[in-house]
């Protein structure tokens, strides 16, 4: 006998609220997407229209034909990947030590690491400019990677510390009893458990570097200019090329969306890591 589905008013309300929340977050992006496929003449229609009257790919054609954007995408990708790798290489072991071997000095270390997040980026821009200039690293990929790493490491440290808080000390002790050194225990036992947390941290670090604007503006010129700068150039003093700008922004957002979808399992696992630990 077939069971009649139960009418659950609470479930419907919760799902409806969730849907409204998701739509409110997604709306600006959907509007961006809609604008990017409008013909130039309709982009700034007054009053504005949400849906395009005619779907046109001319904005995408225009930005893909530009010589600056593909090069800027490559620079952004190189900088974001290297920043992510470097930040994780520094932050993961540091966070582990700071949380598992807690001393006054490790607490202070975590506190000071947060200081760079409390200071406005613009006030750090000038010292970074002078530092990199004296090192001959202006307008180079390594220079921008170092600058981005300086802001990404505290974020990665903060996130990884939260994840490591959920790891029982007994895990490392058991590995040590089985003959592992501390580093082996960290590498072979702890890190595999932390894959979800590392994925989340990597994603946030990648996005931080991928979208960063101010340091890229100050520290790069033509050789290593990143995509956010090129996209901002569509806003000229003599007008804003909405169509091209939105098309470039849509293209630029795709890698992050793809990476997020690819790592979805690990990210959800990472975000819920420790949630059920007693």
């Amino acid at each position, binding site marked *: 006998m077939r069971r009649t589905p139960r009418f659950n008013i609470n479930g419907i309300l919760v799902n409806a609220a969730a849907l409204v929340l998701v739509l409110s977050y997604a709306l600006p992006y959907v509007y961006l997407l809609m604008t990017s496929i409008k*013909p130039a*003449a309709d982009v*700034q*229609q*007054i009053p504005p229209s949400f849906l395009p009257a005619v779907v046109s790919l001319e904005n995408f054609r225009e930005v893909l034909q530009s010589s600056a954007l593909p090069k800027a995408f490559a620079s952004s990708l190189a900088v974001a990947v290297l920043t992510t790798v470097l930040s994780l290489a520094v932050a993961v072991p540091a966070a582990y030590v700071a949380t598992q071997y807690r001393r006054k000095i490790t607490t202070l270390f975590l506190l000071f690491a947060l200081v760079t997040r409390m200071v406005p980026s613009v006030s750090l821009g*000038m010292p970074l400019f*002078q530092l990199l200039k004296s090192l001959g690293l202006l307008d180079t990929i390594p220079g921008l990677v170092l600058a981005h790493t300086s802001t990404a490491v505290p974020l990665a440290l903060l996130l990884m510390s939260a994840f490591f808080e959920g790891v029982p000390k007994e895990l490392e002790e058991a590995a040590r009893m089985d003959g592992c050194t501390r580093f082996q225990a960290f590498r072979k036992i702890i890190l595999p458990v932390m894959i979800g947390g590392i994925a989340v941290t990597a994603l946030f670090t990648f996005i931080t570097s991928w979208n960063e604007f101010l340091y890229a503006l100050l520290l790069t010129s033509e050789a290593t200019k990143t995509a956010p700068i090129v996209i*901002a150039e*569509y806003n000229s003093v*003599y007008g804003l090329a909405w169509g091209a700008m939105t098309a470039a922004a849509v293209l630029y957002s795709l890698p992050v969306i793809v990476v997020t979808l690819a790592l979805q399992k690990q990210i959800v696992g990472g975000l819920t890591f420790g949630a059920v630990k007693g």
Partner: protein
Amino acid sequence: MDVDNVVMAIMLNFIGGWSEGLAQRQEDLMRNLLSASALALIFMVAPANAETINILVEGGGEMLQKAVAEKFAAETGIEVKFTVVPYQGVFDKFSAEIASGSSAFDVVTIDVVWNAKFAGHVEDLSPLFTDAVRSDLPPALLADAHLGGKMIGMPAWANAEIVFYRKDLFGKPEEQKAFQEKYGYPLAPPKTWQQWRDMAKFFTRDTDGDGKTDFWGTDTIGTFSEEWMAHVLQAGSPGVILDEDGNVIIDNEAHKQALEFYIAPHCTDHSVPENVNEIGWGEAQNLFYQGKTAMMKFWAHAYKMTPADSKVSGKVGVAPMLAGEAGIAAIPGPWYNVVPSTSQHKDAAKKFIAFAIANNALGIEAPLGLAATNSAYRSYSGKPGYEHFTPLLETLSAPATQGRPMNEKYQEIVDEAVLPAVQQALTCKEDVGELLANARETIEDILD
């Protein structure tokens, strides 16, 4: 380079000019004088060691200077590299370079609103301002370059607001007849404040009969104050916001009259879309391009940039900016080439700037189609597609046209005092005199 070669270059330039016919003779003479002066300057300055100069510029500026840079490289062997950044990036990067004490840039192309900020950090370019160069530039552009007893920059291109109108509507016999009957004078591109208001009221209408206005005579911009400043000059004020001695004059009679005129189409005539404090340059331009307004006051470059698929393509007419008691006046929007004091290649940079002003017309083929010199604009004024050059030049060269106050705190003054006053006036509930008196106090506080 010896003197013989210099003389030969100058002679060849003159011969070239005289051989092209009598009709163009006067204009060619001016161009060749400029070329000759620039060439003489180029060859007289010490030979530069630099093979490359770096120019920091905003996106539109690269397009306007690319052709001249290519010609310069071909003729001198000095390579020109552009570093293109977003608008605000020019200010930020140049500021960072100054703070660092050495510069990667040899020329920076800056907006006039930054002239006062950077005046103390750039080279004096007075030697490049020969008599020929000076006589070929609108006086307002020369005045904006003169700070602290030196010429801090050479104009690269300039812009100004002019009047745009719908040629098709102004040319319709039935519209002309109706206007004549209602206002007692012929319908023609507006020249005065009263004509502007009359025509804006006349064209404001409900075109689809649904009881709602859907076509307006013009627009009022509530997010920028430069258009009101132009009216201040038209009304005869000796300056905008500050006089030449730095005294605050924002509450003088001309400022009041100009503000009353500026808000009238919205508050009294209802001949503009209602959301005035949401209308900026982009919105005003789009309203016109989409065929929703009959007239606009706008920067001249918009004429050449009218989209081919716009509802008004081929129907746009242009005229000089409006005139008040002091005649035609506008706030110019020039950009200047400056040489940072920290540049490593100052001689080569100055060579480029002299070359650029002598070949100023080369930028006109760029999409924005702007130049700075009278001769550059005149050389295109008869050509189809460049009908806006004559009204632009008339506006830029008008005796009452002058720049914004050359004060380091200009932007703060605008953001904290001027724009709030204009926006409050546009609520139509405040007394204009009181608003300007309050703005005066705020500005005095900022300057103190």
